[in-house]
């Protein structure tokens, strides 16, 4: 007993610094911003208590709903795009050959680049006059497809989501490769003996084994897409006319461009609530599947 107690108190002690840092920089700011969300505050001067007015205003603001819709587009594109592509690449690049390693590094590379660099690169690719994409379409004779990719409100949200997906596939690829390599060779051998090959093996053996990993990546996708900010702020700044506004850029613009700190705090609290809701939803859906 005493030795286990000592071990436990050691664990507690060892975890304490990390916990303290997490509390001060992770949890306390969330509580503070939830608190500021009940005030009308410009960041300077006195705080004026307004109760739930900020939330009411938010729900009535069409831009908030547009930002939410854009965020959901990002979530959908991340789940449809990043997870399956990363999984497919992981299956193809599983073996440790030289060629596979090079491709793996290439897929992972954008993750290492600063997001500002990624945003600028794609900004130039989409550039309306001399951008790579429009020039290429011109050369291929697809003149009718040429457009101002980041200005045209019909396509710009999709145009913005492509670089975000492109930049984020890398880590999922690594996670999947690690999960696939963890499948013990006995399972693979047994599958082979039972005649499970190709798709049959994929759907009945491989995927069920790494199902937990897939759920984790989907959760990461959801939370990552909901806090997406940097790529968009570099490429479009949420514009033109707020057509690519996301919840995070909406929050940022309200707090730091228009100086409505109270309202911005309410929006950030809302982002947390929406993330929790979506992740909870995902948890229930995938739980039933397994």
């Amino acid at each position, binding site marked *: 007993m005493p030795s286990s107690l000592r071990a436990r108190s050691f664990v507690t002690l060892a975890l304490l610094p990390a916990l303290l840092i997490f509390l001060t920089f992770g949890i306390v700011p969330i509580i503070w911003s939830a608190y500021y969300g009940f005030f009308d505050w410009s960041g*300077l001067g006195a705080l004026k208590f307004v109760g739930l007015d900020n939330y009411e205003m938010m729900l009535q603001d069409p831009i908030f709903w547009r930002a939410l819709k854009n965020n959901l587009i990002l979530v959908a594109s991340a789940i449809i795009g990043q997870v399956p592509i990363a999984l497919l690449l992981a299956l193809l690049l599983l073996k440790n050959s030289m060629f596979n390693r090079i491709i793996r590094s290439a897929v992972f590379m954008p993750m290492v680049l600063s997001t500002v660099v990624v945003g600028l690169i794609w900004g130039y690719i989409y550039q309306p*006059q001399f951008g790579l994409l429009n020039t290429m379409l011109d050369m291929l004779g697809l003149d009718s497809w040429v457009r*101002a990719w980041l200005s045209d409100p019909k396509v710009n949200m999709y145009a913005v989501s492509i670089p975000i997906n492109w930049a984020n596939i890398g880590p999922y690829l690594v996670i999947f490769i690690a999960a696939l390599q963890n499948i013990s060779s006995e399972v693979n051998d047994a599958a082979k003996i039972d005649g499970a090959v190709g798709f049959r093996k994929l759907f009945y053996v491989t995927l069920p084994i790494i199902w937990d990993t897939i759920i984790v990546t989907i959760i990461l996708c959801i939370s990552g897409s909901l806090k997406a900010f940097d790529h968009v702020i570099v490429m*479009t*700044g949420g514009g033109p*006319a707020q057509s690519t506004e996301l919840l995070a850029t909406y929050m940022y613009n309200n707090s730091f461009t228009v100086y*409505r700190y109270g309202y911005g705090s309410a929006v950030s609290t809302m982002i947390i609530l929406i993330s929790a809701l979506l992740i909870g939803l995902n948890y229930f859906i995938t739980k039933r599947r397994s």
Partner: protein
Amino acid sequence: MKKRFTWVVTLIALISLLAAACSSGSDTGSNEGGSTEKVKLTIWHNFAGDDLRAKAVRGLIDEYKKNNPNVELDAQAIPVDGYRQRLSTVAAGNEMPDVFFVYAGSQSQEFYDAGLLQPITPLAEEYPDWKANFMDGAFDRFEFEEGQIYSAPVGLSATSFLYYNKDLFERYNVTVPTTWTELMTAVKTFNDNGITPIALGNKAPWVAQSTILGSLADRVTGTEWFLKAVKGEASFTDQVFIDALAKFKELVDNKAFQEGANSIDNTQAEQYFIQGNAAMMISGAWTLTNLAASATDEQMAPIEVTTMPAIEGGAGAPGTISGGAGGGFALSKNTEGAVKEAALDLIYAISGPDGQKAIAESNSMVMYKMDLENANVSPLYLKAFNVAKEAGITPVYDAYLSAEAGEAINNGLQEIMMGGKLEDVAKKLQDAQARSTQQ
């Protein structure tokens, strides 16, 4: 929670005060007179870049440092993009530096309202000639009380010069527009010849508002109407403002701007213009600086500068430029005693006659009257400075509107460029401005 924070800040301030008292005490001990007592002074500014103006201002600060060995100067140069936020953050904690650069308009007003500033009037009393030499309206945004000035502008932010490429106008036989009709003719001719009439980079959405709408709307509505609308005595939903927006829409509908203007930034538009792809560009004085830094002499040769064309039947005066005092150095409320003396000296060292000349010689506009014919400035700058001296200055929209209303019209112009309705844009602007005047 707030209270506790204040306590901590006060405690830290007390401790540092104590420390300062101790150290200065020992200083005076060793130097009998006490006149060499070290004064600790902090200054924050946003002249952090590599451009000539930023270098000039930093040079002035360095010189002050050299001439005042008794002052321990802590100068923080913060990049422009983060400057407003940084200053707002320390303002919220009431930890302002002694001297700081403040933008004229909504920012200086907000700081004044929050009780963070004290007047620099002692300087004006000490150097009356200096104050008299500023252009009209230089202190409009810094004179919060009768007879008290809170800062002196170190720049004129002229936001709407019409730059044009003389060669392209000659090649296609187009007259440089002095009226709206001539402008529309020019737009059509250039479009027919595959030249972009006006380069615009409106990704950061303030550009179209600051450079084009300010001047354009002033010509239609007149300055008086705008100032009334800001105060809530007229409405942005008035027909006269819709007419002004309609002029902007006319430019959009006639394809005066290049495709995708909303997704390229101002610098890219400047490059597009200087490379001869566009015949005109409506932009501020900053374009002078940017072009001087990046363009070759050959590219610069055909560039001329004038004011935006007059609008027939409009209520505003022609030949004006939208602009205003471009910000200046202000003094924190908390600065007292010897530090305050040193701080005022520092402000004069940057904003005084020598400082103004040094800034002008970095090819950027100042609001201080002087003769630059023999000064070391570029030919295009001299042209622009002389245009600005002659032209009347009309208000820039976002310097007068509340931050929220400024954002509303910025986004509204992008909306118009995407085919939005004028009435909706006007209404959003009016609503946002009304919200801030109510408070």
